[in-house]
């Protein structure tokens, strides 16, 4: 019995959103009479932080403190239309819609403030702390709250905005098959170090090193959180769980948590993450978001590392001990691949 070490690499270009049909998102923004702002969406925060990021984006575009922005999501009866939270599109599509809606609301807010201060709206700016000031003469100012009150009760004006983000729907070039399904990509590269026991077929992932390029990380802690959790899910997809163990037969289809495996809190893998920021031109403040990409490169990297460790190429997920042992048997034993510099022995 030997424990073989292996290292595997994978990289990914991941599409943000999907162009087909234009992939629209809408946002509505309105002020309350006390100068807070409500962002209404019907996109859903699945826990990835879309709500937090849209709140940040709205505060930035409105020029008001983040504490004064509320995000209401996930009711398609009361919110404007959205394609949904999928295709790694949340930050990009919803963020762009929120910027547009917030910009329209901001313009009305500045008009209302201008009327109160008896100056031109073009001469006004927000300080990000809840005030609207005359440029170059910050003592001449009005609070956002007073502006909202004046708009509501004196001027008869709404401080609100509508935003939609729609990209030009992509068609297929029938001669070449060429199409442009997305407008921007996120990128990642990932290295897995693991061991394979050639007697039991057991794989133990020892370390993950990853680099993710997500545009601007609008909320770095949320990005890190998503990457940590996503990599865990990738390990689970690669080695533990499957929805269809005997595909195409539907037997033993997991019905619940107790009918498939996943790594527990004692089986987590140390993960070193580097986040590279290259703000994307068409993304909200440059942020593309990690999205589904946080799980995906883990799978091929583990498959490559298993191949490097014992020479068994498993092409069906999950990579179970049984598949590795069958591969070892077919190959007549472990055939470790070349050791790469720096691979733990």
């Amino acid at each position: 019995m030997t424990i073989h070490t292996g290292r595997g690499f994978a990289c990914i270009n991941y599409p943000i959103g999907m162009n087909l049909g234009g992939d629209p998102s809408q946002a509505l923004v309105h002020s309350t009479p006390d100068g807070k702002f409500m962002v209404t969406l019907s996109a859903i925060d699945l826990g990835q932080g879309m709500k937090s990021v849209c709140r940040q984006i709205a505060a930035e575009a409105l020029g008001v403190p983040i504490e004064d922005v509320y995000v209401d999501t996930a009711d398609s009866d009361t919110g404007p239309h959205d394609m949904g939270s999928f295709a790694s599109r949340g930050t990009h599509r919803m963020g762009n819609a929120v910027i547009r809606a917030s910009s329209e609301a901001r313009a009305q807010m500045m008009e209302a403030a201008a009327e109160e201060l008896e100056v031109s709206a073009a001469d006004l700016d927000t300080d990000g702390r809840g005030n609207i000031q005359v440029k170059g003469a910050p003592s001449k100012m009005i609070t956002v709250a007073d502006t909202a009150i004046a708009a509501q009760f004196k001027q008869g004006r709404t401080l609100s905005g509508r935003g939609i983000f729609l990209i030009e729907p992509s068609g297929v070039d029938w001669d070449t098959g060429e199409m442009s399904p997305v407008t921007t990509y996120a990128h990642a590269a990932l290295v897995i170090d693991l061991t394979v026991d050639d007697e039991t077929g057991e794989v133990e992932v020892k370390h993950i090193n990853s680099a993710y390029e997500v545009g601007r990380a609008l909320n770095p802690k949320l990005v890190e959180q998503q990457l940590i959790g996503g990599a865990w899910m990738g390990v689970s997809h690669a080695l533990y769980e499957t929805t269809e163990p005997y595909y195409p037969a539907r037997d033993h289809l997991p019905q619940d948590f107790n009918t498939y495996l996943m790594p527990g809190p004692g089986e987590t893998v140390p993960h070193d993450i580097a986040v590279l920021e290259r703000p994307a031109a068409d993304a909200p403040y440059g942020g593309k978001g990690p999205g589904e990409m946080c799980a995906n490169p883990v799978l091929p990297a583990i498959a490559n590392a298993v191949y490097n460790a014992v020479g068994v190429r498993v092409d069906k997920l999950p990579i179970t001990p049984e598949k590795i042992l069958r591969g070892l048997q077919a190959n007549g034993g472990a055939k470790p691949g070349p050791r790469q510099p720096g691979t733990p022995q």
Partner: protein
Amino acid sequence: MPKTPVTFTLNGAETGIFVDPGLNLLEALRREAGDLSPKFGCGQGTCGACTILINGEPHLSCLTLAVAAQDADISTTGGLAPGADLHPLQQAFADGFAAQCGFCTSGMLMAAKALLDRNPRPTRDEVVEAISGNLCRCTGYDPIVDAILDAAARVQGRVTA
């Protein structure tokens, strides 16, 4: 079939409800006592989302008959922070980004509270063992383990963050 009266203490408050004899405690707490903090995940004791404390011990409320809670002292996440300040575990979870979708969080908090109540200075392995009956599909567990260790340190006055 007549309903059975059950009285217990829920987060310090005397509580009395009428339940069908076969009703599980999770449904009783949610539907009859109005405490929605224990979550229904699997309903078969696999996921831990419904974890509550009965007389200080962690229990899966979905596998506990409501009538068995007679005279019990029950704690749920709903009672963790009675005032404006969060419980140290809740604060550590928030600061450490230890929740994403949040569905497991309630059960995680109660499993962690049971641990810290009897072992205020747990090792990492002890934390892992304490939450090994609680499933999370979002976080990858490490942020949760870190948050529980952080909460233990805060309670001890050993501030790490």
